[in-house]
């Protein structure tokens, strides 16, 4: 059995500082906000579709969900493919385009497993962290935690984004969760100080929700005033919970959420 990954990328890859420099270069096209009915719209978030050759993707099921539930746009929180191979990249692009609505991505660790991983990501999707403002109602901030940390420049950028547009409901979407239950497992941001700094920022600016993937699970936690979600839609088995996506609905001037579980 051969390793499909370029293992040198485990250490020698564009760092979060490098990626932030690219993000701020002005050379990458920032995704534009979707056009929606400002009084009523729906969007979905999930992580880890992890397209790979030997497993059936659940994106086809999701395509039907988008049509059936009239989802206006969706976001994918990293690990788009399992191995970042060309065939997988083509397949995930086709799968994400199939629903025919705008979609937004943020990178996961699997995006960095090939030497051209970051190059492919940024030329395909644009910057790895950015914010979109949806109808003046909801602000979605996509963060780059692909290698399990935020870094100085991204922390500064995040705080400036949180401080702006204070009238909107804010959701932060990224790959790594902050918290994953009381058991000591690894699939979350590593450093306690980094997590507390991030939680402090999210609390101070009254962020509505933090949505992540990385571990293949479904978990909802209430951290102070913050809704914290882990929501993954991988092709294979789950570490816990059921696969699915998180559906947000804006109606009557408020935002509601529900988990929609995968049904074969």
């Amino acid at each position, binding site marked *: 059995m051969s390793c499909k990954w370029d293992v040198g*990328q*485990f*250490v020698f*890859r564009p*760092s*979060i500082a490098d990626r932030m420099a690219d993000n701020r270069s002005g050379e990458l096209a920032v995704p534009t906000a979707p056009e929606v009915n400002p009084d009523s719209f729906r969007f979905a978030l999930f992580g880890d579709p992890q397209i790979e050759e030997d497993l059936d993707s659940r994106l086809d099921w999701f395509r039907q969900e988008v049509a059936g539930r009239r989802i206006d746009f969706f976001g994918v929180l990293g690990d788009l493919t399992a191995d970042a191979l060309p065939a997988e990249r083509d397949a995930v692009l086709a799968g994400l385009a199939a629903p025919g609505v705008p979609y937004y991505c943020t990178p*996961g*660790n699997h995006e*960095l*497993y090939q030497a051209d991983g970051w190059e492919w990501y940024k030329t395909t999707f644009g910057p790895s962290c950015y914010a979109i403002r949806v109808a003046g109602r909801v602000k979605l901030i996509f963060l780059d935690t*692909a*290698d*399990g*940390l*935020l*870094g*100085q*420049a*991204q*922390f500064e950028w995040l705080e400036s984004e949180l401080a702006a547009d204070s009238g909107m409901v804010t959701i932060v979407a990224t790959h*790594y969760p*902050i*918290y994953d*239950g*009381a*058991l*000591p*497992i*690894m*699939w*979350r941001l*590593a*450093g*306690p*100080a*980094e*997590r*507390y*700094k991030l*939680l*402090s*920022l999210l*609390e*101070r600016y009254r962020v509505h929700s933090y949505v992540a993937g*990385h*571990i293949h699970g479904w978990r909802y*936690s*209430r*951290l*102070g005033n913050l809704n914290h979600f882990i929501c993954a839609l991988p092709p294979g088995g789950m570490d816990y919970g059921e696969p699915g996506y998180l559906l947000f609905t804006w109606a009557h001037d408020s935002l509601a959420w529900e988990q929609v579980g995968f049904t074969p």
Partner: protein
Amino acid sequence: MSAAILLILAVGSQVLRFQSEAGIGFRHEPGVETKALLHVGAGAFTTFGASIGANIALSAGDNPGIAGYGLGGEILLLPPVRLRLRAGVNHNQWSSWRAGENSVSMMTLAAPLRRLDLGVGAAWRVPVLDPAGYRSPLRWQGPASEWNLLYRLQWAFIARPAHGLAAWIANDDRQNPATAQQFPFGLGGYLQVRPQWWLKVGIGSNIKGLSGATFSLGEVNARVGVSCGK
């Protein structure tokens, strides 16, 4: 009464020894915080292997003020392999973020070889994240509370009374507790500079991104200080 006190003091002086220490440190976690630290601690040790100690750390730079304080104790259970039980209670805080953490920990340690020290245990960590309450050292339930596995693997290259040098992989530093994902490692040494006075130095780091196989150096910690005692 005074005779009894004198007797207690006389016996105590035979079975107790005291040690105090002070030092300065530096902690840099890229993108998170950079600060200088002042550590002060004191402990009492018995000749039969029990000890109790307290410490406090102050910071300057990011998150100035109290960085943490705690109480800890250890008891020797099986002298031939230095099997010990260690317990501690700690409070850390980050003033600028209005965040803190309370933790209670317990570890079992042993030295199956003269130069090898092994330990395993657990800690219950309780973040204190609400702006009004982060100073509370008495809160043991709250959002984002979690268990933390603790471990220590330490090898002493040199272990003499007057000087020593050891390398370690461990996450049981009460003032800088690390999660199981961080894989902290470092070097520490001591040198006797005068009778009952030791110079102590340590440097350490850890790794982030283990669960994603995207490794980054998580932080740098350095500490230098002196300890004195019988």
